[in-house]
């Protein structure tokens, strides 16, 4: 705890922590797209004004900024959910190496939650396909709204269950009572600001991701619609950044001294400040944006860098909080043993090969679509 993350740890622990944070960041991008995307769809279909706009002009879900954003999100959500679930496997793996006992115990204590995650996500997945279907598209927006509500409820449940599980894994003193009482829910005030942070932060991530999508497909859309959508995205990002910063502040206020110590120590404080800098970069990137033409590749790259830095650093702070609750020094031997088993070279080799294959997939599509642009 006396050195900057992850330098103060033995190399196996540092390696697994770094791998966990990086893979969790990749997962977060997709997860936040899904969480914020389903919220945007829900608001779009259920908020009276938006519904009226969509219903009055059947062909015009692409005539308003929100309509255009909703079209893009609706089109991509099932695939992004697939990517989120796949991306989630790697951090889940490294988490089990790092904090086996804590993670498994919380899982066992909240087993009902994890038994329900499966049907919840399956339902949500099929709802997303249903939202895309032609059958439902021809019906009033309220139908789409109800289907979206089901999907959103499933995603919200998943987010809450994960946060609850994580917070319970930090509170060993609560395990015994949680078990004996057969409590269905683990109550802890830390859950809500944490959950609040990740949900609100997801709007900023969604905004920049959709901005890229609109930027790449800008020749396919009406410039006026693009301008409207761009302003909506700017508002979404700024609201998300402001509320998530507030949630983060509330969260650290709630922590007791022992938990706040590592967060505000040399271990994580620089990352906390860097996360704020990342937010500031995003705000600075979004503020001057008025039209789609303002969203140049360079500006989007700048905002994206800010978003990535924010996510990575927030995850480091999250780990620092965990270390305030768990004595990681007793796990060094486990991490050392894990690092000694063979296979790392295979992973690195196939990581590189498969990254190249994925790039080839994307490039082949890009080439095929070039004439359309």
């Amino acid at each position, binding site marked *: 705890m006396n050195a900057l993350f992850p330098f103060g740890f033995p190399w196996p622990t540092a390696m697994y922590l770094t791998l966990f944070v990086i893979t969790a960041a990749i997962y977060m991008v997709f997860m936040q797209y899904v969480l914020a995307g389903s919220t945007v769809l829900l608001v779009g279909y259920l908020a009276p004004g938006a519904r009226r706009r969509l219903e009055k002009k059947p062909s015009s879900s692409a005539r308003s900024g929100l309509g255009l954003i909703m079209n893009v999100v609706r089109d991509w959500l099932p*695939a992004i959910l*697939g*990517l989120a*679930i*796949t991306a*989630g*496997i*790697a951090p*889940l*793996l*490294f988490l*089990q*190496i790092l904090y*086996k*006992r804590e993670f*498994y*115990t919380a*899982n*066992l*204590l909240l*087993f009902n939650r*994890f*038994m329900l*995650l*499966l049907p919840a*996500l*399956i339902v949500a*997945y*099929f709802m997303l*396909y249903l939202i895309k279907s032609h059958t439902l598209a021809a019906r009033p927006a309220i139908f789409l709204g109800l289907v979206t509500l089901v999907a959103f409820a499933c995603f919200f449940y998943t987010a809450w269950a994960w946060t609850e599980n994580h917070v319970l894994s930090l509170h060993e003193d609560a*395990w*015994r009572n*949680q*078990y*004996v009482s*057969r409590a269905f829910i683990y109550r802890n005030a830390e859950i809500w600001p944490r959950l609040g942070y990740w949900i609100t932060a997801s709007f900023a991530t969604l905004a920049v991701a959709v901005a890229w999508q609109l930027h790449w497909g800008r020749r396919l859309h009406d410039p006026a619609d693009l301008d409207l959508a761009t302003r909506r995205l700017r508002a979404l990002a700024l609201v998300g950044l402001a509320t998530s910063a507030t949630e983060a502040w509330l969260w650290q206020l709630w922590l007791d001294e022992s938990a706040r110590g590592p967060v505000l120590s040399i271990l994580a404080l620089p990352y906390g400040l860097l996360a704020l800098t990342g937010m500031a970069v995003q705000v600075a990137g979004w503020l001057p944006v008025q039209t789609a033409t303002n969203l140049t590749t360079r500006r989007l790259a700048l905002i994206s860098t800010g978003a990535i830095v924010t996510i990575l650093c927030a995850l480091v702070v999250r780990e620092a909080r965990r270390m305030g609750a768990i004595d990681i020094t007793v796990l060094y031997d*486990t991490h050392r*043993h*894990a690092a000694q*088993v*063979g*296979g*790392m070279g*295979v*992973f690195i080799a*196939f*990581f590189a*090969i*498969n*990254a190249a*294959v*994925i790039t*080839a*997939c*994307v490039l*082949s*599509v890009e*080439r*095929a*679509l070039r004439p359309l642009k």
Partner: protein
Amino acid sequence: MITYYPIQDYGPLMKGMVIGGLGIFHVFLAQMAIGGGMLLCYFEWLRRTGRSKSAGRFINGYFQALVLVSFVLGALTGVAMWFTSIQVSPRTIGVMVEEFHWFWATEWTFFCVEVVSGYTFLRYKDRLSAQGRMTLLVFYSAAAWFSLFWINGILSFQLTPGRWVETHNVWWGFFNPSFWPSLLYRTVAALAIAALAACVVINIAGPLEQEARRELVGHASVFLVPMVLMPFLGAWFLASMPADSRSWVLGGSVTMTMFMGIGVGASLLIGAYALGAFWYMKLSINGFTAALLCAIAFAATAGGEFVREGVRKPYSIRQVLYSNSLRQDELERLRQNGSIATDPYPLRDGLAYPNDQLRRGAMVYRFQCSVCHTYDGANGLLELTGTWTLDQKRINIAQLQRTKPFMPPFAGNAAELESLVQMLSWRRAAMPRSWPVSDDPTTLTKIQAWLDEVGTRPGVELMGQREALAPSEHGARGLEEISMGLQR
């Protein structure tokens, strides 16, 4: 130091049933995705070379079904398998993750390729060149098969860790004795499942003319041909098993033999239908028949997976962890010190027991037995021990590995064993409000003698060692006493 985890009770449901049910479903879907990728490559080749006029339409319909069923349900049940494994045996999954995490991480990179190439194909297939389509399908199909390659090494390790036990070299564990037969068998099964699923899709995906259907079914049925290899691969897999495991499926355990019979019988039925109907006579097949054949394939998968899980007993990882997640050295230590003295989790229904001895018995049951047994549900202990006298319970549990060689040795001291016996008897007696404490030193001495006599070696090691089965003087005296008691 043993790590204790909070253990959940699923009532009449055996924990193995929960993971088994989900596992079979997941394996079926995953194999459908793996074979499906190869099948799509084949149909794309037929389309490109002009050998099939309807292949293009089929590819679109089949891929849609593959995404909806396999990407969604397959991916999620895969993640759920992890969570369920934690629920059933956190220590087992912990050992597996620790030992094979780099291979799991490697498998993950293939999942990423699978998802990206799959969604890319789904989304842009109509805009891609023929070469581009084929490239994406080959990427998808190779990634799907390689995901099988990696997970197969990890799963087959559980049954046949091979030289890993001596060397602790992860490569020995991965390329273990049952790796290749298992991989090849699963590949053939994946091809067959994909072909049957294709027959369902051909019948339900849009208005195809009779001739087009017949042609597509004919092409799909090519993927059933490798099934002729199944008997040889199955025999190879059997030969790679440890002798005791093999003996369970070849008559040693009726349940195992029966499930093996279901797997083999179902596969034979499909193979016979394929040879007789699809391949030789070039008959068409309607949607209902195709669905029925898929259901039979599901039964074959269920039989095979049940056998794969079951023949590992008394281990969850052979020669490493017993099915109650204890290592041999831990078991030996617990024989001396007791198994629940440091368990931090009290009973949830502690007040329901009339005395501390029964409470201790319930904790022993929870720690050692509840992973495979229930009280009075599936594999219920009250039923299994219902007709045993007190002394029969004592000796049968003390020498559990002799009672049933697929049971792990009892992992506690004499006092804990007596607590367990009393608790089972109390439950069998409909849980009366009062129950006497059994603390007769002679009984405990007798139990200790039985425990000492059998030792802590597993039953599968005692099998075939006749001298080890000969009772010692001390144990023989105990047996005589039981015999006399029964005569009286």
